[in-house]
């Protein structure tokens, strides 16, 4: 790995009696997209807050380009662009004014910041909305402007906290494309997400975090390596299968069975799986197979294995709830 541009050493943070981060350590190399993947409450936002100066660690060290900045983050903030999980731009200002103001906070003079703002508005497809108040933007537009605002002062490091959560598919796709483009231009990206596919599509290295602890940090290829040559299926059944797992394993010893939430189970084997005998066996046990899906070896499988958290459950956590729904 090339020299680390960000280095976190044993970062620990407590909020009252809750241990939000427990000795979190990782490095981010210059020019890479580093993914921080975990469910709600895992410590992703806390980590970003510590790394950007919005919070102070109780213990541990933060180094940017080899220089320790723990407790004096103002020294590092010029290097950083930050896109929070919720928009923090000014609703009463227009898109252009918001970008201009953000540039001014980093000491940019009027003409360069106006030129930069127009360049970014064009790049992010917002030039038509430059004169509109931010409060009138759609969610996707707001998110794009927030990213543009973070890039105003041309920071070499960009932090993004859940950049595509809660926005439409088209906007999310566009944002991913823009992030890849920013990265090609040399921007190091630290991305937190709970969308596994997003991490898999964008990131070079990924850290799995759950309950404030880093469970694994590795290159995407390394994470996927154990799945190469594996055959996986996911079955949706008429009832829960937990009580039949032992029988299934004995009947089909070459296949590993795992029960999933929502009356589903996962099958994993080194050889291709013949579905017919399994369906018949289950039918004899009074369980109907409603659906069988062949799974492509993906990061989702690795994530489930390492964290024990089901990807589907994590995905549902942050999806907008229907109006009138309960939490």
């Amino acid at each position: 790995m090339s020299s680390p541009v960000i280095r976190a050493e044993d970062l620990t943070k407590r909020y009252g009696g809750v241990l939000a981060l427990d000795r979190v350590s990782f490095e981010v190399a210059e020019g890479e997209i580093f993914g921080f993947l975990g469910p709600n409450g895992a410590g992703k936002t806390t980590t970003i807050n510590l790394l950007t100066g919005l919070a102070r660690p109780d213990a541990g060290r933060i180094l940017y380009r080899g220089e320790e900045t723990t407790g004096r983050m103002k020294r590092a903030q010029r290097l950083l662009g930050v896109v929070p999980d919720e928009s923090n731009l000014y609703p009463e200002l227009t898109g252009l004014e918001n970008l201009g103001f953000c540039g001014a906070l980093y000491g940019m003079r009027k003409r360069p910041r106006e030129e930069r703002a127009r360049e970014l508005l064009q790049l992010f497809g917002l030039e038509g909305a430059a004169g509109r108040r931010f409060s009138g933007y759609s969610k996707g537009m707001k998110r794009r402007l927030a990213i543009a605002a973070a890039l105003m002062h041309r920071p070499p490091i960009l932090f993004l906290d859940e950049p595509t959560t809660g926005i439409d598919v088209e906007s999310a796709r566009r944002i991913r494309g823009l992030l890849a483009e920013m990265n090609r231009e040399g921007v190091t990206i630290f991305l937190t997400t709970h969308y596994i596919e997003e991490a898999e599509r964008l990131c070079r290295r990924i850290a799995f975090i759950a309950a404030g602890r880093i469970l694994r940090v590795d290159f995407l290829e390394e994470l996927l390596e154990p799945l190469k040559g594996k055959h996986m299926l996911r079955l949706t059944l008429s009832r829960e299968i937990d009580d039949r797992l032992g029988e299934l394993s004995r009947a089909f010893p070459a296949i590993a069975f795992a029960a999933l939430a929502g009356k589903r189970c996962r099958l994993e084997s080194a050889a291709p799986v013949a579905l017919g005998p399994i369906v018949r066996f289950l039918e004899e046990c009074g369980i109907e197979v409603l659906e069988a899906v062949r799974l492509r070896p993906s990061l989702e499988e690795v994530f489930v294995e390492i964290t024990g958290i089901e990807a589907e459950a994590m995905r549902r956590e942050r999806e907008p709830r229907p109006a009138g729904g309960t939490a």
Partner: protein
Amino acid sequence: MRQAIAFWNILLKDMRAYYLKPPNVSWGILFPLAWTAMFFIKSGSGPERWREVLPGVAAISILFGTTSMLAVTVTFEKKGRSFERLLLAPISLELLMFAKTAGAILFGVANAFVPFAIAAFFVDLVPFAWGTALPAVLLLAVSSTFLGLFIAVSVSEVFEAQTFSNFFRFPMIFLCGLFFPIAHLPWFLQPLAYLFPLTYGVDLLRHSLQLPAMLSPAVDFGVLGLFCWALFAFSLRNVRRRWIL
């Protein structure tokens, strides 16, 4: 230079977003006007007493103008998370908070001169010591603004900012010598009057209009300066402790 650009743009943004909005401008004019009218109606006296009333009305205009605006705008930005954007900028917390308060200070100064401008049409304000009045108005605006900042960083909701502001403002109005001379207050309330910056500001404005005052201008300036420093320092400490968790 970079710090100056950031400072100027924070101030400019706040002026445009909050202080120069028509409702606030009209409030800045109507509020002193209403207080002045109230004094005359209550006392039943004519313009000959205007000079006596002016220090109090100007001081109250500053106090209400600055504390109301700053306490609410800072709390509002904190709640809406746009304050985080400022905390992420590579500018010192001192400069940032000074930039955030500069708009309110200017608003307070402008408010103070409304009653003076109105009075100048009706009575002769000469003799008037500008050399005392200008720094007095400025220091009063700074101390009141920093009181607003202290309130803003001590609460988390906008409505709390309003309520907490009144907790300070109303005792100040009644005890600063505006309604009753401090010497006429019950003995146990008299020490309280000296705990409020408004008391010293009113006293200085009385000096500038060459009206009888309690303390020397040097003491008034010194104590007001001390209030400014203490309120600002305490507010910064609270921001570091409560907002940068």
